[in-house]
């Protein structure tokens, strides 16, 4: 399926669409004309190096910043004009949670409910309790926020989004500060939400996490959206490589045979090698290796990891883009 067909299919049923979205800060272009399309019901991994414009984009989507050019639509309604109609369906954690340090976790949530004009006061307490339960903060609900650990603060931020049913959740680094148990719970939470039909946008640096839960990916770099595809498409577009591991004494034989097949394994004389196989079928390689007397310890087709794809696309180094 061509790129254009893909895009058309997605925008027809997209929860978030932007066209030519631009935002500058002084001379710097933070968001440089992006056409975002988040499919309904997807778990959309929003990735990019630091300074790529992810957070600015999220702020634009939520109406916190005004766009310099382009359009934004949430649930097919224009932002910021229809923000009042649409934002109650959206929950978000943006750049970390923020609460009053001198209020308890429960009081902080109550504050948000009290100033939300579409929040039903009769069920407010129950929903608050359920949200706290869902993130495991019931025991700490009455403690003042400034006594919370980083992980607890993060959970409270997520609890705030769960106090009412949401059609879209935007989670910016949701596993920040969480221990492995907490990270697993967040992953399960996202899966549950996904199963319920909620669209989830996860902005994260933990590519291994994203890989596990996301169905679609959008990668930003220097203000541009350089990739926007389903995870499946992203993987199949990349050439898989064969991982071959042989015993030390048969390495030379193995390498010789691979060279005869026209393949170029990486490294010079290591027993463990990665080789791009091109058109050569794997069974043929296996038979050739065995035939040459190589003792195979392991043979597997490796899908390129999201991290490899990411680094390849963004060319990211340690330096911030600007």
């Amino acid at each position, binding site marked *: 399926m061509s790129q254009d067909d893909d895009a058309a299919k997605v925008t027809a049923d997209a929860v978030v669409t932007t066209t030519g979205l631009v935002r500058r800060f002084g001379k710097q272009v933070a968001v440089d004309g992006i056409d975002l399309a988040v499919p309904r019901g997807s778990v959309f991994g929003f990735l990019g190096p630091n300074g790529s414009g992810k957070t600015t984009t999220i702020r634009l989507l939520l109406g*916190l910043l005004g766009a310099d050019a382009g359009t934004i639509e949430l649930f097919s309604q224009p932002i910021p004009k229809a923000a009042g109609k649409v934002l109650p369906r959206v929950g978000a954690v943006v750049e970390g949670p*923020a*609460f009053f340090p001198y209020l308890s976790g429960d009081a902080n949530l109550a504050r948000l409910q009290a*100033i*939300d*004009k579409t*929040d039903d006061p009769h069920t407010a307490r129950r929903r608050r309790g359920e949200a706290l339960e869902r993130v495991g903060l019931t025991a700490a609900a009455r403690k003042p926020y400034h006594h919370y650990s980083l992980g607890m603060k993060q959970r409270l931020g997520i609890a705030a989004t769960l106090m009412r*049913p949401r059609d879209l959740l935007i989670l910016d680094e949701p596993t920040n500060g969480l221990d492995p148990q907490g990270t697993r719970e967040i992953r399960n939470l996202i899966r549950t939400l996904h199963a319920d039909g909620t669209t989830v946008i996860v902005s994260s640096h933990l590519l291994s996490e994203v890989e596990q839960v996301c169905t679609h990916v959008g990668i930003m770099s220097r203000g541009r959206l350089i990739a926007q595809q389903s995870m499946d498409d992203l993987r199949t577009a990349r050439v898989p490589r064969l991982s071959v591991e042989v015993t030390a004494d048969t390495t030379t034989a193995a390498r010789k045979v691979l060279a005869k097949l026209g393949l170029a394994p990486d490294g010079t004389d290591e027993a463990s090698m990665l080789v791009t196989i091109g058109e050569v079928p794997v069974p043929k390689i296996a038979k050739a290796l065995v035939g040459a007397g190589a003792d195979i310890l392991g043979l597997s087709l490796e899908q390129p990891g999201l991290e490899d794809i990411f680094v390849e696309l963004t060319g990211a180094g340690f330096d911030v883009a600007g």
Partner: protein
Amino acid sequence: MSQVENFDAVPGALWRAIGSEIGLVLRRRRNQVLLAGLAALPIVIGLAVKLVSSHTDGGVGLITKITNSGLFLAAVVFVVSMPLFLPLVISVVAGDALAAETQLGTTRYAMILPVSRTKWLGMKAVGLVVFVIAGVATVLVVSLVVGFALFGVSDMTLLSGDTIGPWAGVGRIALMSVYVVASEMGMVAVGLFISSLTDVPIVAMAGTAIVPAVCTVLLAVPQLQAIQPGLLTYHWLDLTTFLFAQPDVALIRQGLLVQLAWVAVFGSLAWARVASTDVKA
């Protein structure tokens, strides 16, 4: 698929929001300490007067007035607190109004609920006004109680020489306190505006607190006579007119108009600022 909710405003939503804001302002420990500080003023002044009067025979006119009728203590406390203490206390709370939530980052979470910018400013304004009323009420009630306890209540001898009964005296003091509340509305508006400019509350507090001081300086410059009647503090001490048999209503009206003008100007500036700024915090 999650339920599609009805997104009309729930009845009473505005009151809930205002109630939440008032709760935030009045339940905050620091603000309660400020109110306690205001309550201490009449206690300190009352005790000081008691001490002085018990050691000297006649004493200064004002002290005699207080010892004769505890109602005068309230009047004196208002006069003493108007130029500095009260505006300072209000600066602290007003400086926080918008800047604190911006600093904490809670503003952005309010904005995405969503809460309209106008409602946001309105909530903050009401919270501040309620705090001013609470502060003045604290001073009033404590002054009356302390005055009664230390000096007893009897007919009040006004500054114009006339005498009025105790209840009429309470009435006058109450009118004074209403004028004090009204006189601080300009400060509230200025505080809101300065608070909207920064994400550092203490800067907003300092900026607001300076305003009366600047006005005092400008009032001391004779060449500025033309603009002086419009300055925020110009009519502040006219509250003493309630201590005359015939209070100067024209003076009070001027004072209220000046406050109205400052509220209109700085309220609009604050609104323009809050309505148009990106929520970067």
